């Protein structure tokens, strides 16, 4: 059984007259795999990631999504998170007034409670996060800061992957985690993410650059165009897209789109 199976997924902006964005996405991801999605800005990559995470601003009009064999679309965003789906945001949200440590402890305990595990007290929680902080080279003071408030772009992305490491998801969706990072930060973040790779989980990476994929080597690379995954291949496809852009893809699949 595949970990994630997306069949003919259509989604639109959930508002009167909202436009169609996803126009028939098909994607199967097995446990242990890394998939990458590349594509021009506006092709629908973030929308796909957000729909998978349970964003209600989008309405699924057709198709289905099976996660561990169950219908993912009927779960709320928090239920999906508790079942092991994690979205690292392209634009992480700032939440003034809520400290990172407090928030993350609540998050970890929400998942543990859902699994019928004992909730962590402050000491056990801090032990858990300490290693992950080292992994992502985070300052200890970071835990006392409000979530993403006043963080630089790079710090925000690092925070996403730090949270991902703490939450230890079965399906990680990384939406342009590499954008806006300098070389060192990219290395830290990418290595952090790569270390989470296990035979029983999967990672879906949305990216524009092949650079990130040198650390998290993908099994399959997909190209998204106009709300569909129009082409796939091995990691060579990522190199080709990175160096040559998308015009050739358009020509090749032009008839289909």
């Amino acid at each position, binding site marked *: 059984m595949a970990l994630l199976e997306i069949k003919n997924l259509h989604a639109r902006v959930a508002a009167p007259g909202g436009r169609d964005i996803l126009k028939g996405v098909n994607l199967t991801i097995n446990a242990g795999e890394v998939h990458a999605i590349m594509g021009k800005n506006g092709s629908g990559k973030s929308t796909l990631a957000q729909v998978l995470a349970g964003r209600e601003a989008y309405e699924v009009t057709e198709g289905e999504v099976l996660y561990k064999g169950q219908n993912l679309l009927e779960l709320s965003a*928090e239920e999906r998170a508790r079942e092991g789906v994690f979205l690292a*945001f392209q634009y992480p949200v700032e939440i003034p*007034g809520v400290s990172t*440590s407090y928030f993350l402890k*609540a*998050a970890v305990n929400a998942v543990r409670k859902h699994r019928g595990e004992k909730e962590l007290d402050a000491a056990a929680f801090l032990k858990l996060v300490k290693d992950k902080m080292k992994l992502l080279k985070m300052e200890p003071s970071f835990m006392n800061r409000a979530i993403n408030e006043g963080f630089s772009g790079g710090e925000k992305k690092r925070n996403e992957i730090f949270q991902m490491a703490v*939450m230890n998801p079965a399906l990680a969706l990384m939406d342009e985690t590499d954008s806006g990072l300098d070389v060192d930060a990219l290395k830290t973040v990418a290595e952090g993410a790569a270390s989470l790779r296990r035979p029983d989980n999967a990672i879906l990476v949305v990216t524009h650059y092949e650079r990130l994929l040198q650390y998290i080597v993908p099994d399959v690379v997909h190209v998204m165009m106009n709300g569909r995954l129009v082409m796939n291949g091995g990691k060579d496809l990522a190199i080709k897209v990175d160096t040559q852009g998308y015009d050739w893809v358009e020509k090749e699949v032009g008839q289909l789109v």
Partner: protein
Amino acid sequence: MTQVADKTTHLSNFTQFREVPGGSPSWLEARRKAGIDRFDFIGFPTTREEEWRHTNVAPIAKTAFKLASRDSAALASETAARFGFGNDAAVELVFVNGHYAPHLSRPAKLPRGVRAISLADALESDDAALEPHLARYADVVKNPFVALNAGFIRDGAFVHLPRGATVEKPIHLLFVSTPSREPAVAHPRVLVVAEEGAQATVVESYVGGGKGVYFTNAVTEIVAAPGARIDHCKLQQENLEAFHVATMQVQLGRDSHFVSHSASIGSRLTRNDLNVVMAGEHADATVNGLVLATGEQHIDNHTLLDHAQPNCPSHELYKHVLGAKSVGVFKGRILVRQAAQKTDSKQTSKALLLSDDATMHSMPALEIYADDVKCTHGSSLGPVDEEQVFYLRTRGVGLEAARHLMTYAFAADITRRIRVEPVRRRLEEYMAAQHGLPIDLRITDLGAHDEAVRQL
């Protein structure tokens, strides 16, 4: 509105009030008379008046309130115990329906010369510090509720801090109301006089237990001599049928500091007027407020920061969390008089609307007559940010808990600045209870939690 009938209630209360002997020095008799005459002349305000445009006091005017009397029933002592500070206060004066209740109060060893006593006792001995200050600052001419209160000055609290005195723990003035079968009104009066360089934290709690309509019409006057420092905190948690109208008039001398935190969570209708006069150079005022309203509550805060002298900074932050059909009103007037050069004033008002039916009226009013000043103001209102809520949900935090956390974070801007621990705790517990918060998201341990992390 039939003004004459409305006033009659209070005018006949006054006749009855005068017959009670004791505690009536002649100078006070004159001030009471001036107050009630003024009230008789102007009557209750209507929404046609600019200052009362969004707050209709007709429900107060139409109710025949008798004067609230002492109550020794269990409800009074239970409520006092529930809201008491215990050892967190230097001294706790408890009033039941406006009357000092010595058996519920907790005296303490205060530093030499410091007095925190009932106003009735102070008047009985015609304390020398009263005459120059009592009913000298709050404006009976413009505000009919102040005038009405002045007519009934008899009990409340008197705090006197002699030159250089410092009281470490808060002085807690706890006003408990217990509704009776007939609606009753209390007119508590507080006077705080801080002589040169004195420092104290003064907390006023206005709380109500049980069911039934009552009316608290309070006036507080605070006088800070040069170099004095007053940290003030007010918690208003009257019962949900109560009316609460209060004026706090603050007079700041040179180099004095005043910090005020006002939290309104109870009552059916509240109107607070907070007027701070920076009457000496380099006086410094910070006034913050938090409103947590739900149901059909109506909570109005009018503030006036009166910059009368140069070089005075003032900061103001009011936050409103409005649920259900509640209404919040904020008018923040900043007056910079001609002499007040180098004024530095910043005002912010924010409202979080938890329901489509909640309403916020926010009105900044800057009047600037000096030319070399820095004044800024900003106001915003809106619902909980759904993008923030979604972010929390993608980490497993439930929808309700996420909304609560956002609300808590919004209010925390104020609560975390409140240095009076029992008040801060009460506000946090109130919010947690209101949102039926799951135990793993109780925010009361937030401080302790962050402290543990800091120790890491």
